[in-house]
């Protein structure tokens, strides 16, 4: 966990987020090919390499672009192929919002991705959701490009 409570001496504070957990599997996304990569079928590595583990959102939005829908279509097909697999969808935001608002916005994004997968026939019981708000950026830096990467919903094998 990135956060620890500090003792209170008049002010209680929380340690700032560090981004050492960022960058794992960055920039896979919708461009992944269906080629075999040696990853175990039905594994997290398989999902990342051959399906695409994340979808991206426009600023302050939770609508699914055609690219996002294409990635989720592939995730739904992959989940149909590996019915024993359960996943978590984590919604994330760029840092141009408040801490608390972005927790809800990230959850809104995770739920949008989940609802799409469920509409494509994935059992709701196989999908859990969570939001990390703006605290788990996958791309370092504060420019439009990094923010676009950080507005996402990331699917991972549980």
């Amino acid at each position, binding site marked *: *966990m990135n*956060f620890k*409570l*500090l003792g*209170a001496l*008049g*002010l*209680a*504070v*929380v*340690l*700032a*987020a*560090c*981004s050492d957990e960022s960058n794992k599997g960055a920039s896979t996304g919708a461009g992944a090919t269906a080629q075999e990569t040696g990853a175990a079928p039905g594994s997290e590595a398989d999902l990342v390499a051959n399906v695409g583990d994340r979808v991206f959102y426009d600023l*302050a939005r*939770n609508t699914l672009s055609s690219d996002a829908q294409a990635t989720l279509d592939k995730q739904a097909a992959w989940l149909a192929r590996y019915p024993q697999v359960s996943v*978590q969808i984590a919604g994330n935001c760029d*840092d*141009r*919002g*408040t*801490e*608390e*608002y972005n*927790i*809800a*916005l990230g*959850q*809104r994004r995770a*739920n*949008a991705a989940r609802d799409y997968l469920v509409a494509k026939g994935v059992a709701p019981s196989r999908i859990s959701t*969570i*939001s990390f708000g703006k*605290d788990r950026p996958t791309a*370092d*830096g*504060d420019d439009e490009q990094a923010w676009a990467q950080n507005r996402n919903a990331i699917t991972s094998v549980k």
Partner: protein
Amino acid sequence: MTPRFNPVRDQIAFMSYANNRPRVYTFDLGSGSQRMLGEFNGISFAPRFSPNGGQVVLSATRGGGSDIFVIDLGSGAKRQITSSGAIDTSPCFSPDGSQIVFNSDRGGSPQLYMMSASGGGARRISFGNGSYGSPVWSPRGDLIAFTRLAGGRFSLGVMGPDGTGERILTEGFTVESPTFCPNGRVIAFCRQSASGAGGAGFSSGIGTIDITGFHERPIRTETGASDPAWSPLQG
């Protein structure tokens, strides 16, 4: 995250990602006992105590939004006071306990709203450029401190509870999470800088500023810090 002091008891409320299940907890500083507050299917977050310390107002995600609830700490009873379907969060009681200011995107963008503590009659009070968030009521009752976002930059300001007299006190890449000192004259807040490649140049710290907009100062902490909460006066 987001620790908040109970105004009358040695207790804080906060949100934790323990067990991959983000929820609000209370923690008794004397006994060290901790408990999850209420049962929610979604994420519970953004807790703040009522002025008498007997209740916590918080929000919980549902569908595409989040609702605001008041939980009685004695009985555990949970009362839902918003159900807009939008994101309603960052609720904060007025010092007399009769009203709640909160953040909502029910009108499209995140703005500040005021409602009665029982939940009725929400009306928007923020009308400047951009979006608003993290409203907090001054202990004196005369001001709401808030975060405003416009043009990709944050500013921190105050306005009257009816939305009039808005003044920006300071601004920056990120300035948020205002919290008043007990006499209402100084606000502590979090200031963060932008990060470059590899996270270079990022810093997160606590500062204070007078409600006049003068005397801004950093508060030194051993590590980076965010989410300040100013304690009540000790008896």
